[in-house]
């Protein structure tokens, strides 16, 4: 009988549906809690710089004078420290991943962080 201990798994695999998804026809939806990307709502922001201070990877750059808020998504580790620290509730962790950065965005943030 011991020789057939794998047979139960083999039989189930043979007659059952695949354990994997048929990507790209079936896509995996993120969970509600999944950390996908940080979203910024500019209308309530007072540019206090608190989010940039708590960021462990220095991914956030805040320019108070020019009222600009920028995030380098390549550096962001989605820890949620900025969303927790925000007193005006203008930072949110969305569950879908961010779209890829454009070359112009990348260049702008590179100049800003230098």
């Amino acid at each position: 009988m011991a020789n057939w201990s794998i047979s139960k798994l083999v039989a189930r695999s043979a007659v059952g549906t695949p354990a994997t998804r048929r990507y790209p026809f079936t896509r995996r939806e993120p969970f509600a809690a999944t950390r996908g990307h940080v979203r910024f709502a500019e209308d309530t922001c007072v540019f206090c710089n608190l989010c940039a201070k708590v960021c462990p990877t220095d991914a956030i750059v805040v320019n108070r004078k020019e009222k600009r808020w920028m995030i380098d998504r390549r550096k962001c580790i989605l820890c949620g420290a900025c969303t927790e620290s925000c007193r005006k509730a203008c930072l949110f962790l969305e569950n879908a991943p961010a779209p890829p950065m454009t070359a112009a965005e990348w260049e702008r943030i590179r100049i800003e962080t230098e």
Partner: protein
Amino acid sequence: MSAPTQTKPRTIVPFGPQHPVLPEPIHLDLVLEDEKVVDAIPTIGFVHRGLEKLCEKHDFHKMTQVAERVCGICSFMHGMGYCQAIETVMGIEVPARALFLRTFWAELSRVHSHLLWLGLIADAFGFESLFMHSWRVREKILDIIEETSGGRVIFGSCKIGGIRRDVADDILRRIRRELDPIETEFRDIASVFDQDPTAKRRLRGLGALSREDAHALGAVGPTARGSGIDFDARKLGYAAYPQLEFEPVVETAGDCQARCSVRIREIHQSFDLLRQAIDKMPAGAIEVPVKGNPNGEYMSRLEQPRGEVGYYVKGDGKKNLGRFRVRTPTFANIPALIHMLKGCEFADVPVIVLTIDPCISCAER
């Protein structure tokens, strides 16, 4: 005049740092007499990142994220060990719900780490379909981890003073119901490891480590418990473990089969602890505010899937720590591994190396 004693010629064969059985770099110089290993000389340091030194650059809150990135498998427990050490130094009382959720995530980590290992050992002894089945079940655990913490590898849930996010009670109750079919599926896989003659032939009697040797060489975790040492750091009473009922899983044979059995039984034990943690989950706050800087030193100990880990922190009242040190289980198990390898066949080396569940990124930090 007697003839001089004939000694067999010795050959040195390098094992790693790039080897099909291990994705991580460890190098062993295997001294062989024919096909028999008579000695093994380890070399580590290929992926040393100097994470401990980073405590001088980042403040102690931000070091939680660094600690989590010591390892990609037991990431949660690294963060938890660091937070526990800082909380003890600063005298912070962590809320009960946060402690229970930390225990919940720690046990999920243990289940997924052991399932990963079972897949890898099956692959190492040439049983690829068993490897696939182990990882199929592991995927379901990873989904639970993602649903509750938001990440599959890096949980990002632990912070000094508690946890970052709560898990709703209805989600926890649903997860509790889902655990039963997952455990049933796992039981089918475990029976292959226990009963299949090919698995037995590749594991039984291999890489034997006696209880005395395991103790003398400082083995930890399933490596030590497979040799009959009745020690589990969870019994020290951190997080919510004092409120949960369990006994350390111990096997006495000391061979690869025993270490495999310990991990299989620990998965069942973790499922039981998960159910207990959900049933006894208290309501209330998940964090307390943290004020001031750590001033003092402490060594926090906890049980990771690979064994006991030690987190030493020393603060001098500034926002940056003075010293941060991690003592990882893989590093502690390397002397025991060298002892196991002596006398084995050359073809058995990959299987024996895998039975200590080596995590080189942990060992080199």
